[in-house]
């Protein structure tokens, strides 16, 4: 289980901001989301979209603990 957060345009695209999704790894979570919503899956793999696990940016795959927080961060706007 992971707490999944979407920000900025990803939230508008998916139509949700936060969900609990059972997943053992970041790759498994990406597959789950892409199978459910192909547009979101493509956007999550898009240029400039970063993933953070427990508030640290992760490149590639990472294992997820039951209480992990995963955030998908589209290109940042700045302040």
């Amino acid at each position: 289980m992971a707490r999944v957060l979407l920000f900025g345009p990803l939230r508008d695209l998916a139509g949700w901001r936060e969900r609990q999704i059972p997943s053992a790894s970041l790759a498994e979570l990406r597959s789950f989301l892409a199978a459910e919503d192909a547009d979101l899956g493509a956007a999550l793999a898009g240029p400039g979209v970063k993933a953070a696990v427990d508030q640290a940016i992760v490149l590639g795959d990472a294992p997820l603990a039951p209480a992990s927080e995963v955030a998908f961060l589209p290109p940042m706007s700045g302040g």
Partner: protein
Amino acid sequence: MIRLTEAPFDPGALLSAFASDRRETGAVATFTGIARAEDGATAILELEAYPGFTEAEIGKIADQARDRFGLQDLQIVHRVGKIQPGEPIVFVATAASHRRAAFEACDFLMDYLKSRAPFWKKEHGPDGARWIEPTAQDHADRERWASERT
């Protein structure tokens, strides 16, 4: 100190508090950014942050500024949520022994905040809403600090 707030803030009050009780600070510089109306094109600006992560990332920029300019102190206050044109959106204050460091640190912090800080910005106008990304000018402004080591 770094603070995100959904409520409007008064830059004058922030400056008064920041500048008080200082005996070894020769210079305080501040910058206040204000949301523009863009001639009616922007009715509301909406800023989203990732609570915790956004403050931590801004904290890294602040640490760089402290080291690079030898600051005594700094403060960053940034609005999140819905912001009306004319309302202050960001306040940066820097304190140093001398003016040059205070001025330059303020400029440096704003260039990083405008291009690198984890915010997602949406403009709501008469023609609908759109998400904003940093401009080429914002990136060029930040790059100045890579070439111009002080």
